[in-house]
């Protein structure tokens, strides 16, 4: 799974460069994000602009990351594509996550794979 890590002001921005965030990659996703969030920055913003498909396992992994980060370090999501937005709406997770219309312009820290 390819991701890039950036900083936008105080926020840590993780861009997921994967067209499908599903059951096949959910565990990898959790592991990568856990490692990347060792870098300081709050809130953590997940840039999902490249994710065309999210299933309930992918969503569960995003929820798991939110819980892992804890209340002091909010997880927010940005740039949801049409199908991804629909799943957030269907499961009412749009009431739980702060959703940014666009990904913030971030200064790259590093790319990870």
């Amino acid at each position, binding site marked *: 799974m390819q991701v890039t890590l950036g900083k936008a002001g105080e926020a840590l921005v993780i861009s997921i460069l994967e067209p499908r965030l599903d059951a*096949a990659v959910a565990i990898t996703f959790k592991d990568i994000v856990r490692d990347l969030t060792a870098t300081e920055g709050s809130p953590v913003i997940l840039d999902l602009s490249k994710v065309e498909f999210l299933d309930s396992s992918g969503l569960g992994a995003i929820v798991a990351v939110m819980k892992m980060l804890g209340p002091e370090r909010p997880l927010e999501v940005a740039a949801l594509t049409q*199908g991804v937005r629909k799943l957030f709406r269907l499961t009412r997770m749009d009431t*739980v996550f702060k959703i940014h219309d666009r990904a913030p312009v971030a200064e790259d820290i590093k790319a990870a794979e």
Partner: protein
Amino acid sequence: MTQATGPMDSLQMQCDGELREIRSTVRTVETHLSALGLARDVIDDLNLALTEAMTNIARHGYLSKGGEISLSIRVEGDYLKCQLEDHGVAFNPDALGRSSPDPAELREGGYGWYIIRKLSENLCYARENGRNQLSFWLPTTRHSDL
């Protein structure tokens, strides 16, 4: 993964109940239906419903050890009629996914059946000759109203 040839408006496939293979099977279905000119949001719905149903079979039916899943999809009237068959553990979807999980509980799973029900109509399940048969219809005329 194998794909049978047939008329354009129907598709039969077999695949192993394994997550990566489910992924490529759903991709093939997507390509086939795009070629038929179905709307993007209808294909997105099918993609999601199939992925959820097949992931359930792989995890709970075959206990993540793999096993054959047969898939049949046909376009009929205003519906995509989908049928999935497997020889995994029997299940009963009747009681599953009837209500929306409370988002405030921050559950990491348990959304699959709710999603399938929300997207589909005529969800039916039967167990025959040691096989699970699951079918559902997805409307092809609905626009993104959810």
